[in-house]
């Protein structure tokens, strides 16, 4: 039973990362490989700000989110946009994002060193024992935060004008342009929010494990993608549930089958999902133009 809770814990972390991924993925139909690296950089920026001792945690977190968001925008503006504007095959964008991911990861290593850094224990949260199972308050916080973010995002997309513009871009870029919408600006906003979300995920995970290292983003990035696909592209609740499912499946596999295969399970899930139901649990079917 405890194992399920363990699974949910790690699952919520994947969910958090997955939401940001899903957003970029859903609106731009682009898998930002660098998402994992942005997550790492976000965690480190918060760490640096908090460690300087002079800025409070809340402010550090906020500043970091903004900084990371801007980083995402910069990446888009200076790297992805030129690639996109050449109307080159989608694959080039993917390769570009892989290159960007390698670049960012090594940049983080250069700036912050390759040693695992300690995340100061900012919030002292305990845990409760309930029905013979230990639940950490941290987990609850992360869970609620993820849920809150999803609701906020959904509202933003459904109710605001910018949100509408985003949905329009997702459906048909050219038509949206013709309607007078500044698509480039919309794309940048999407990257900003997506990256800021990555920062939130990275920071919270760093705080939970009280450690940050330059490679922390790689696996979560891949699993977050799996979660996003499992839930359906662009469907945030799906990404959240997807993350939880992967967390649980992975944990149970590690406990009852073989600990070494736990990462493989996530990929196996991905493959199965893509074969059986490519649109994910909640996704809409992609129409193929003929």
């Amino acid at each position, binding site marked *: 039973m405890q*194992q399920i809770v363990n699974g949910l814990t*790690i699952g919520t972390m994947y969910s958090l990362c997955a939401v940001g991924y899903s957003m970029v993925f859903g609106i731009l139909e682009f898998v930002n490989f660098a998402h994992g690296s942005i997550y790492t950089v976000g965690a480190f920026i918060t760490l640096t700000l908090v460690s300087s001792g002079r800025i409070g945690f809340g402010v550090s977190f906020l500043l970091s989110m903004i900084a990371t968001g801007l980083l995402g925008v910069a990446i888009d503006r200076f790297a992805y946009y030129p690639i996109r504007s050449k109307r080159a095959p989608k694959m080039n964008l993917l390769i570009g994002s892989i290159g960007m991911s390698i670049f960012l990861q090594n940049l983080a290593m250069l700036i912050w060193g390759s040693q695992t850094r300690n995340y100061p224990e900012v919030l002292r949260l305990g845990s409760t024992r309930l029905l013979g199972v230990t639940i950490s308050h941290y987990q609850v916080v992360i869970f609620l935060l993820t849920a809150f973010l999803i609701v906020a995002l959904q509202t933003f997309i459904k109710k605001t004008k910018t949100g509408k513009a985003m949905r329009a871009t997702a459906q048909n870029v050219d038509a949206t342009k013709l309607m007078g919408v500044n698509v480039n600006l919309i794309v940048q906003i999407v990257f900003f929010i997506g990256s800021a979300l990555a920062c939130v995920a990275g920071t919270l995970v760093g705080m939970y*494990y009280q450690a940050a290292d330059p490679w922390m983003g790689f696996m979560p990035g891949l699993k977050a993608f799996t979660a996003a696909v499992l839930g359906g592209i662009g469907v945030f609740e799906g990404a959240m549930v997807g993350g939880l499912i992967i967390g649980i499946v992975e944990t149970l596999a590690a406990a009852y089958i073989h600990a070494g295969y736990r990462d493989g399970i996530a990929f196996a899930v991905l493959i199965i999902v893509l074969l059986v139901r490519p649109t994910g649990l909640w996704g809409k079917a992609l129409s193929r133009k003929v």
Partner: protein
Amino acid sequence: MTKRLMITLVSTLVLLCLCGMCTIGAGEIRIAVCAPITGNYSQYGLSFKNGTQLMAKLVNEAGGINGARIKMEIYDDKNEQKEGVNIAQRLVSDRGVAAVIGHFASGVCLATAPVFQRAGLVLISPTSSHPDFTKQGTYMFRNNVKEDVEGPCSAEFMIKQLKKKNIAIIYVNNDWGVTARDYFMEGVKKFGGKIVASEMFIDGQTKDFSPILTKINAAKAEIIYLAAMYTDSGMIAQQLNRLGYKIDLFGNSSIYNDMLIQLAGKAVEGTYLVASYFDEDPTPVVRNFIANYKKEYGVVPDQYAALAYDTAGLVVEALKICGPDRAKLRDALAGIKDYPGVTGNTTFDENRDAQKGVIILQIQNGKFVFHSRV
């Protein structure tokens, strides 16, 4: 288009040839240091670099070896076998290189051993613990305590001193972790203990240990032996604490690092570990080393720096006897007895493995404290 191709190929060819042929000025004794300067293990590579270069600096300040300066040349093997073999090939053809200190990981050592052995160039590793390494040839040396000493010592201590018989192991699934596990398990059997659980995790990828910890708790283990690096050990300790399980921890020498305490804080309080180097050791050799290291680099050396420093020192000893002749160096090195290193008195046995003593430390009040000598 083809012309461009040709030009590029030819120029690359020329570049390569130039590289292959360049040598550095004479009058210097060159020792190559192969370590992971980039990648997951770069912090250990840095320790290697610092330790060996400090030794070179001190030797040169004291007048060098019979007047000749020594130079430590650092090569980045990225902890990858292919890179290691690449570098090995390069070093072997470079006649100016007298000996090679490296690598960090046994896997890389095993891959490069045939290259060095065939060419007759000494490879001495400060940290390889895979038993097969020195068996690869007479030019392979090892300057650290093997797992077949640390494992049984730990087992004996746990069972006899701490009186804990139900033992669980968590090991990292790489060649070092598996070897450590195997020797430890032998030790446990020998001293009458029982392995109730043996769980592994993947190097660098696993951060969440809760499933295996829950399993270990269910198996009613009294103590866990950690065959893992300090970063993972720290997380294991923390998560153990968070889950509320009251199980003791026993670490391998690899967790002997101040960062462990920074990362895990109270969670590792009371943990025991084996080590061969201890920075509170009052012997003058150690104190001098620490003082010099701190002056040069601003931080306290970790055991890897200490091992690398000693390894460099051993090579220097051999050089003093015979000069930079590769074959003679091998013989001189093999004959070293009772070298007063900072990691203990070192003698090479007939397999060119270093024989050193082992000590037990414990973490008390956030510091590593000497417990007993085995």
